[in-house]
């Protein structure tokens, strides 16, 4: 049973436009969420996180929105740049132990077209 879902395996966006990556979860106990970006043959790099006590967190071009009632979070990238082309993973955790029990989604491949 997949507790964290990213239903779009891939997404293509024009450079300069907004990229919206979606993530849904089933476990209502999850209370901390992170987004990671991964280039081929490299380890993921941390992008942005959000606690369940917030509904929005912003860091430069990246904003994460959390809708707890819908068990849904999204990552917005504005404006999108070709260097943003990568696989994006969302991860969720129950807050105890600072996320030793993270569950990752399968990832969405973002392609930003020049």
């Amino acid at each position, binding site marked *: 049973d997949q507790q964290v879902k990213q239903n779009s395996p891939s997404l293509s966006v024009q450079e300069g436009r907004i990229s919206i990556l979606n993530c849904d979860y089933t476990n209502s106990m999850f209370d901390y969420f*992170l987004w990671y970006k991964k280039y081929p043959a490299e380890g993921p790099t941390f992008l942005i996180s959000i606690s369940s006590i917030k509904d929005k967190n912003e860091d430069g071009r990246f904003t994460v929105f959390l809708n707890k009632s819908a068990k849904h979070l999204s990552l917005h990238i504005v404006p999108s740049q070709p260097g943003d082309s990568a696989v994006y993973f969302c991860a969720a955790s129950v807050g105890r132990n600072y996320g030793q029990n993270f569950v*990752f989604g399968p990832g969405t491949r973002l392609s930003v077209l020049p």
Partner: protein
Amino acid sequence: SQTIHQWPATLVQPVGSPLSLECTVEGTSNPNLYWYRQAAGRGLQLLFYSVGIGQISSEVPQNLSASRPQDRQFILSSKKLLLSDSGFYLCAWQRQTRYEQYFGPGTRLTVT
């Protein structure tokens, strides 16, 4: 600054052979350490995590094992590899009071 090293970068091993992947972290102490596997087209699967020397928790039953002989060293091992062990293996570290995990460059393992 902190850095995390993994080696080897790529490995091709026959079925039934042993495995040893090593991960070391520099620039921090008492990190939580993690081993993940990413199978082709799949997300990251947590295999093992450690909150201290000699303390290993396993998330998935398998023919793999992990050890933490030193504070900043984490080793993934197998006595006999299976074809299904092929994948991209990632080590990560985390400060004990933070959520973010920082990943190494990974090891591509192909079992033939």
